[in-house]
């Protein structure tokens, strides 16, 4: 159990790195690392299919999208970047302290309600659930992908005017 908790701590640290890194590309690396660690956590908990999707889509595809956006939007002025970096640290340095404080505070709370494993077990296979019970969600996924396609067509088109 200690290993798993350590894994979760690493997850939070990676997310912390993603928020606090001064260089944007490092922040994105942190985000990809967070996704990868989350995928490992999910895999350890038995959510294999979701873990694979998280790894390939979030750690992979989203990182590609974000790096492309960064490369398309290279900020012009170096001075602007340096000034932003300084004010950034000022705004962000309390974050790790706040997180540690929150973590410690939360660990002292004892939950009176017994939440664990009180429901009758039994679920089934993900694939069965997804394809035979959650078809509406699948249709929703198709729809949102369609919306995404329009988003790309409309928002990423070349400036004609």
């Amino acid at each position: 159990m200690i290993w798993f908790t350590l894994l979760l701590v690493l997850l939070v640290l990676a997310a912390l790195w993603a928020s606090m890194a001064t260089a944007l590309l490092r922040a994105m690396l942190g985000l990809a690392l967070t996704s990868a660690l989350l995928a490992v956590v999910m895999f350890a908990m038995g959510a294999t299919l979701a873990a694979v999707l998280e790894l390939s889509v979030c750690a992979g595809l989203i990182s590609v999208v974000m790096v492309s956006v960064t490369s398309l939007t290279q900020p012009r002025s170096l001075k602007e970047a340096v000034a932003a970096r300084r004010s950034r640290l000022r705004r962000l340095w309390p974050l790790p302290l706040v997180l540690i404080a929150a973590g410690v505070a939360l660990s002292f709370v004892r939950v009176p309600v017994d939440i664990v494993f009180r429901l009758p077990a039994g679920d089934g296979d993900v694939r069965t659930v997804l394809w035979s019970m959650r078809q509406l969600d699948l249709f929703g996924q198709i729809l949102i992908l369609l919306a995404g396609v329009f988003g790309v067509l409309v928002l990423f088109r070349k400036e004609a005017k």
Partner: protein
Amino acid sequence: MSDLLLLVPFVAVIFLNLLPKRARGAALWIAFGVLVLEVAAAFAERFATIEVSAFAALERVFPFHLATDGLAGLLMLCAGLVGMAALLVARKTFEDADDRFFFSNLVLVALVGINGIAMVRDLFSLYVFVEVTAVATFILITARRMAGNEGDHAFEGAWKYILLSVIASVLMLTAVGFLLLSTGEITLAAAKEALATQDPLAWIAMGLFLCGLFVKGALVPFHGWLADAYTAAPAPVSVFMAGIVTKASGIFALLRIAQSTLGGAAPGREILLVVGAVTIVVGAFLALTQTNMKRMLAYSSVSQMGYIVLALGGDLGIGILAAGFHFFNHAISKSQLFANAAAIEKELGTLDMDEMGGIGSRMPVTAGTTAVATLSIAGLPPLAGFWSKLLIVLALWNAGEYAFAAVAILVSLVTLAYFLSLQRRVFFGKPLEKWAKVHETAPGLLVPAVALALVTIALGIGFPFVLKVLLGGGA
């Protein structure tokens, strides 16, 4: 049959994109046709006892778990009418054919989202369709690159909406997680049972989900994004957003949850009463101080959403009817007002009411329809808005909430005040020098305004008859 409501607009979108470039001009009218079907479907639901074997076969291929009932029919009717108005406004305000094409497509995608919201029976699917509608709306707000100065704000309007929408989504998903922990299921029925057993997890789940819905519906204190988003969006998008999107994503889900899950339970009612009342007051007073016409309309929307929520806190029997009717009235009247704003923006080039003056004589139709809509929303008889306000006050009175009923009535006066201020600044008096050459806007923009105004008047005068039909047929 309910599957068709999701599949038809979807197939229409695919079809529109398979058309050759030359035929794309018809896109707007095809979308319009789908919306006409939508309105027809809203009425057909009440008579849907016809079992056609083709439909049954469809259900086997696409076994979605959907429920159509009166409430769903209401949302679909509003969506159809508002969508038609938005398309007609787009026809005249988007000069670029590409813009019109994408607008039609995205409206259809949003329509599937809204139909989904109307019909789902489980919390997660509700989230999915709310997201579909939200993403389509994000794109709609920012898509058009206008040369005018309003276009510069499109980003800021969209950005606040996006940020708050994402936070709302996260809240809703966390609620789904809590519900899963509580009951192992995520259907609305399961939530109702779990709430009845006083399970704290279920209460947390419902609380979080409601918070998410409050953000989506722009209820106080989460109303900060609405004014910027409505004002910055291009005219037809404002019509669409104000008329249906905000209502469907936030308020409609509240109606559904109040009807099926909360069922008049005490803490839920009190929260709705307080949030509703505060929203009404804050929205109205913020509207009073505005100089930009669309911004005032936006804050007015916030205030009116408060009325709908307030009705749900009263006696639920009348409350649902009152809320539903006010929902419909606002969808009609607000869309019409934004269509009027579009006309004014097109002819005058500005929405700053301090710069306007006396254009009533130059644009009589716009002035007349604006008067109808504003008086209806303020609750003047014999217009439709009077009846819905009356029902809301009745629902509160019956539940013994006299203080809240008083708030509802008093703020109606404030509503009248800011709308009269709008009328005075924009339409009354002699036309200013610079507006001497202004003329009434194109018939294409007048048609939606006049049509919606006529609906408002007809519904207002004919309401007793409508009430008989509604109560006779069962809500």
